[in-house]
């Protein structure tokens, strides 16, 4: 009898995990990053185009910007790409790419194929800075204000709805700088 209950026990554990996962999925997707309202962590990362050149957090602070975490291995990034393209074109603040856990040649090939929508691009192949940033999975998009404070985070691909939301928030950040 006890042995026959083992599968049920495993199943119950699985269900608990899924219920919790479901409850937190919106959180994980939308806002709750402990870093929101906190300054962006310090980093110094090489750029995509030139491995020798580096961009640090200090280079970015001063103007609001969007940070889009992506990787060539990530399908959902492909899906959101038309919206990333539009963000790059239409948003009133800079869109910076954050290439995560990728290989340079793969990432460059991807960019060539699908287009480069980011004005600048840093690479984090080991994923160290991503951990500091609390990156949960690609794609993710951060909004950082001109003081370097993380104001918003979107987990998952940008779609028509979140695009509008991001645009609205970007305009607000732009307005704050004036």
């Amino acid at each position, binding site marked *: 009898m006890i042995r*026959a209950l083992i599968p049920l026990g495993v199943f119950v554990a699985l269900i608990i995990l899924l219920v*919790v996962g479901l*409850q937190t999925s919106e959180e994980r997707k939308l806002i709750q990053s402990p870093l929101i309202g906190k300054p962006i962590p310090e980093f110094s990362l090489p750029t995509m185009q030139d491995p020798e050149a580096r961009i640090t957090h200090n280079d970015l602070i001063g103007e609001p910007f969007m940070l889009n975490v992506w990787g060539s291995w990530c*399908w959902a990034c492909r899906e959101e790409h*038309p919206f990333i393209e539009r963000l790059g074109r239409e948003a009133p603040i800079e869109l910076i790419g954050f290439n995560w856990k990728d290989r340079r040649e793969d990432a460059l090939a991807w960019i*060539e194929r699908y287009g480069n929508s980011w004005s600048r691009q840093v690479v984090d192949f080991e994923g160290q800075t991503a951990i500091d940033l609390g990156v949960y999975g690609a794609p993710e998009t951060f909004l950082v204000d001109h003081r370097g404070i993380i104001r918003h985070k979107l987990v998952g691909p940008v779609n028509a709805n979140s695009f509008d939301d991001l645009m609205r928030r970007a305009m607000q950040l732009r307005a704050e700088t004036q």
Partner: protein
Amino acid sequence: MSAEFGQISLILALLLAGVLAVVPLIGAQRGNQALMRLAPSLAIGHFVFLAGAFAALAVAFIQHDFTVTYVALHSNLLLPWFYRLTAVWGSHEGSLLLWMLLFGGWMLAVAVFSRSLPRPFLARVLSVMGIISVGFLLFILLTSNPFERIVPGPIDGQDLNPLLQDPGMIFHPPLLYMGYVGFAVAFAFAIAGLIGGRIERDWVRWARPWTMAAWASLTFGIALGSWWAYYELGWGGWWFWDPVENASFIPWLIGTALIHSQAVTEKRGAFPAWTVLLSIAAFSMSLLGTFLVRSGVLTSVHAFANDPERGLFILGFMVLVTGGALLLYALRAPRIMTGSGFDWISRESLLLLNNVFFTVSAAMVLLGTLYPLIIDFMGWGQISVGPPYFGAMFILLMTPVVVLLPLGPFTRWKRDQTVRVLAPLALAAVFSILSALIICAVLDAWSLRAFSGWLGGLWLIAGTLAYAVRTARASRRGLPRHQLGMALAHAGVGIFIIGAAMVEAHTFERDVRLAPGQAVEESGYRFQLDEVALVKGPNWRAEEGRFRIFRGEREIAQMNPQKRHYYRGNQTMTEVALRPGLFRDLYIAMGEQLDDSGAWSVRLHIKPFVRWIWGGAVLIGLGGLVSASDRRYRQKRKSEQAAASRTAPASGQPTAQAHP
């Protein structure tokens, strides 16, 4: 009008399913023949109304009825008629309807083809399926109704996701769902057996062709999905370990374990509880897959419109179905018969190993897929699992399977000697080692992965062939169907392994800059770009590269990759040009226009033996179908007959020679 017709059909199907879920079950418990007899007719009516609902939605698409929200969101006036038809299952609501249609189809098939089952058993099987149907129809009607209207409707609709505007999309979901819902048959058989209180070898035998057919459909569906990703996603990969791919792969792995454990239970009466458990698991994993895809709990390219409410519904349904099944199992399993014992060296223990490896693999894939959730749950911070984890674990777990597989069919049930098993395979072993060496030398493919791929693949093919030849010689009537099917499937695994190893180890990829008139030479092929032309399709325009491919001085192919821009939704898609071949695929994808001179970045791939991946998978699926079609599974072995011959050995069933 058609939307209302569909809505009403769906409600009627729900009512019939509700009756089916209760009445025949009561009949079976009370021994009331009249109530039990209702089951097949109810199943037929249930299917008719589901078909009506599905047809209604299809008509709404064909007629451009944009007052139906689902149509307005996924179709437009420019969309050709065949994609309007496939758009029916292009998104969440409609694909659930397809799911249900196929589920109803399986019920219909069980009702029609299983008249020889004992009546109480058939009644219970159909009732269990009725219960599942009630759950899914409620799900559709309450949370995902495809027949909802918007008034006034828009003049034109949105677009079907361009990724889905492809012939591969016509068959991929239906085949996949065929597999998913087909496992419901095995599930229903197991539950009916548990309710009845006995696990009999007879019904395991009846369940086998259904399970194999479902498993074969799933195999075809997964293979088709992989092929579709290969040419449509423009990535040149064939498997990505995406959560949704995993969601279809986990039931497949469990199903593979199941069809093998069913063999043991049917032939030897061993592992009956395990077979029941796997039957429950295979369908539960299909439900879990549905949950993962549609709840938005994990991020994936396949993600349908995410809705936690839907997720909660499926979860609740899973708790009822799987939880109920496992509770029943816990209550009844201790009374389940146990089979006769067996030695270490026996077919039982080899099949047990097969089960262990496949189940562990399924658990491993499940764990990797849910890992982000687990980490989050435990508060361990944020780590992600990538393809390397899956790839490494999988090779590790499947290597022993490949090594041991050819031994299985040669091994006797119950007890055998190592020498007797290994002797007939010595030739196959020598052959595979030598030919692997020669082939790698000829192909100049010296890498551990390529060599072990050839070695493993040829070992499977040669070992399977050796068995097929011996069995065909031993019996007068040649190879029986179920053994032919097994041989096909096992050889298919070999072919698949060769393809996968060669692609992974020796794919050539290069990104080049090409202007019209320029050419680039690679591995004996010359790719020449003649021009980049502007072409137009029904709902897109594209820049098309006109390539000619030369081998030496001979022109062997013209290839026209496109960069497509879809008018609605402003999406850009890469249409790769493929030149398939038995031993290599040529693959060209257009990148970006680099400057005003007309130069483009172009990605070239030469993929050796990539077709063998799908060829092998198709052979595996075919093997399942051929096995399922064997008449021995449908022959009625009357209990009186069995009782009469119980004293005689094996009652006409070949045991030592039979297929696992």
